[in-house]
């Protein structure tokens, strides 16, 4: 296939990715150094209230937005350097909190709070996802052929459900007098409120995420299990390997490329944790990095979106995912090169 044909086939797709992925990235990068603000002017306003004999008049200074000739609000865009990053990171406050040794003061800053949660969430759900997925795959592989189809059907449900709805459905089970909270209260004989403190919410979020993504891992691993070389399994049996040793030394090494694949997908997706915050309405206690950017982008009461701060936090989020992915990517790259 020569270059022109290749370009004709790939062109539309590359164009879309450049226009809607690469270009926004550049524009976010540039935006994060600029601030667009409404131009205000200060005017003296005299307000008079009718009174007995004399009017009471007060003059006060008010700042009103300037209007241009089309009576649109005038805005001015300024280069502010790293100011937006400073606003997001609040380094002074963070440093002061750290020097005072106060973790709770440090965690009162939105960005660091979000970063802490996003990282814990990603790193704790990763082994749980892999472990549960592998377990389900082995169990499906063990089950009679006739039930495998229906079991895979049921397993697909948590995976296919809309993330916000999935989080909500777990939320409804535990909220207030939800059925599972009621069951736990009955069992323990104590009052339980799952949404009153941060750590229980985080626990529920992680449970939800593992419930949501484990089926994907399970199905990928199940497909991998079908290709395990039965000869090596058999010779292992002859050599007297126990069930556990066969799993440890034959099955898992065979599945290793798939485990790395699922882990990378999971790192990318769990780092983007967002829907959980919406579904559990946890913004009062727990927030994630992507939610932070989202929150800057949502208009506030005055209808303003803090785009530059959102851009700064978006850039910081990106730096995070790059750092997180460098290690596994380099590893796959080495394996890829070593394999050929």
């Amino acid at each position: 296939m020569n270059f022109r044909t290749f370009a004709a086939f790939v062109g539309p797709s590359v164009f879309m990715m450049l226009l809607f992925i690469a270009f926004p990235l550049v524009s976010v990068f540039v935006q994060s150094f600029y601030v667009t603000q409404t131009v205000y002017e200060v005017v003296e306003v005299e307000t008079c209230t009718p009174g007995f004999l004399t009017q009471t008049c007060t003059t006060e200074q008010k700042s009103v937005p300037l209007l241009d000739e089309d009576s649109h609000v005038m805005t001015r865009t300024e280069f502010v350097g790293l100011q937006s990053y400073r606003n997001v990171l609040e380094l002074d406050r963070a440093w002061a909190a750290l020097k005072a040794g106060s973790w709770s003061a440090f965690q009162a800053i939105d960005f660091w709070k979000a970063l802490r949660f996003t990282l814990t969430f990603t790193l704790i759900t990763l082994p749980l996802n892999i472990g549960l997925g592998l377990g389900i795959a082995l169990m499906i592989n063990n089950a009679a052929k006739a039930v495998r189809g229906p079991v895979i059907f049921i397993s697909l449900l948590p995976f296919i459900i809309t993330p916000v709805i999935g989080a909500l459905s777990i939320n409804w089970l535990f909220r207030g007098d939800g059925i599972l909270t009621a069951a736990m209260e009955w069992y323990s004989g104590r009052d339980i409120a799952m949404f009153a403190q941060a750590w229980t919410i985080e626990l529920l979020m992680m449970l939800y995420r593992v419930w949501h993504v484990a089926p994907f891992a399970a199905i990928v691993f199940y497909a991998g299990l079908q290709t395990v070389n039965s000869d090596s399994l058999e010779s292992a049996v002859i050599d007297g390997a126990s069930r556990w040793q066969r799993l440890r030394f034959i099955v898992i090494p065979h599945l290793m490329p798939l485990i790395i694949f699922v882990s990378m997908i999971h790192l990318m997706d769990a780092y983007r944790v967002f829907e959980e915050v919406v579904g559990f309405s946890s913004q009062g206690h727990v927030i994630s990095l992507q939610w932070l950017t989202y929150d800057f982008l949502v208009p506030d009461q005055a209808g303003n979106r803090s785009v530059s701060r959102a851009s700064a936090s978006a850039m910081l989020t990106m730096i995070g995912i790059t750092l997180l992915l460098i290690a596994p990517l380099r590893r796959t790259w080495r394996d890829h090169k070593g394999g050929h």
Partner: protein
Amino acid sequence: MTSRAMRQPLSLRLTSNGLLILWCLIAAFPIFWITVMSFKTPVDAFDANALNVIFGPATRAKGHGISVFDILLLLVTLWALWQVAAKRLPSMVRSYAPAGAVWLGWLIGIAAFALVALVTLFGIMPALAAALNPVLGALGVDVIGLTTEHYKTVWIDRGFSNNFQNSLIVTAGVVSVSLTVGTLAGYGLARSGSTLAFWILIVALVFRALPHSVLVAGYLPVFINSSEWLAPILGENAPTLYGKPMAVIAVLVAINQPFTIWMLRSFFQNIPAELDEAARVDGCNHFQAFRRVIMPVMWPGVITTGLFSFLLAYNDFLVTSLLLDAQNQTMVPAIAGMFNRETTTTDQVVAVAAAVSITAPLFILVMVFQRQIVSGLTAGAVKG
């Protein structure tokens, strides 16, 4: 393989199957439970006793309920409809559809079937039940409380049908555009061994990792001010892209593109290259080979990829909630609005009904396309 050597002890098999059953319960329970809740009055839906939630005494006391006869009737109807869909429909489509337009036959067949199912379930069945319940004695007495009033509230009073239409527009747009663009690119990438193709794939992989809010932060100012910067090109009536379904479709297509081209590439690699080489020997150029030889055999992969594009567009919350205005809102962001203004338990049950309404199409999707979804999940992974 000697089956005796590999045979597992009974205890291991029992544990394994027991745990599998436990997993199935955990997987299905939340979805099952919100479905049950959505049919009850608020008192029953949030009752601490599970049996009260299932049987709904308060709902029954209000006069909403179904009898044993209703349940049997429903089961029989569903079974009959399933039989028709699974056995009669394919053979009917095969025999009546003109040879060249099988897909058209399927489209008409599915539309007709949906109409028949709706009329049976919501027209004939309630009438039949209402007529027969009083005469049946014990079988006709309400045993389970069940009310559809929350669904009526959601779909009629809260304007959910409007959100449903918007979801349809967005998903249909995303699936069709993303498949058209992606199929071409996937084919090109699968058949070209050049370094450029390799780098496009790597960059696409990096793009896949990007958090969507990063991209939306890039679009928002541009879309809001688009009437200004489009004016020199399009003149006076340049559109504001913010709030338009079209803009969201383009954005979702682009976000989905990395995944789409990776997946389609791996499907195209499974189609032997000898096929298009043969066509080229016979005098086709690359496009003709693609059009006449590859297109007829690529549908399984395209359908699978289409399913995943559909899921992305249908499930998206972040992009649609930030880039669409209120009147073009799709279903998923709409439900978040419903949930946030929860003041009474009734509002909550209404939100539950909305959640179940969103999940129902996905449930049917898995039922119909289970095999394609599984093959899609494993396609990228197993072949590396």
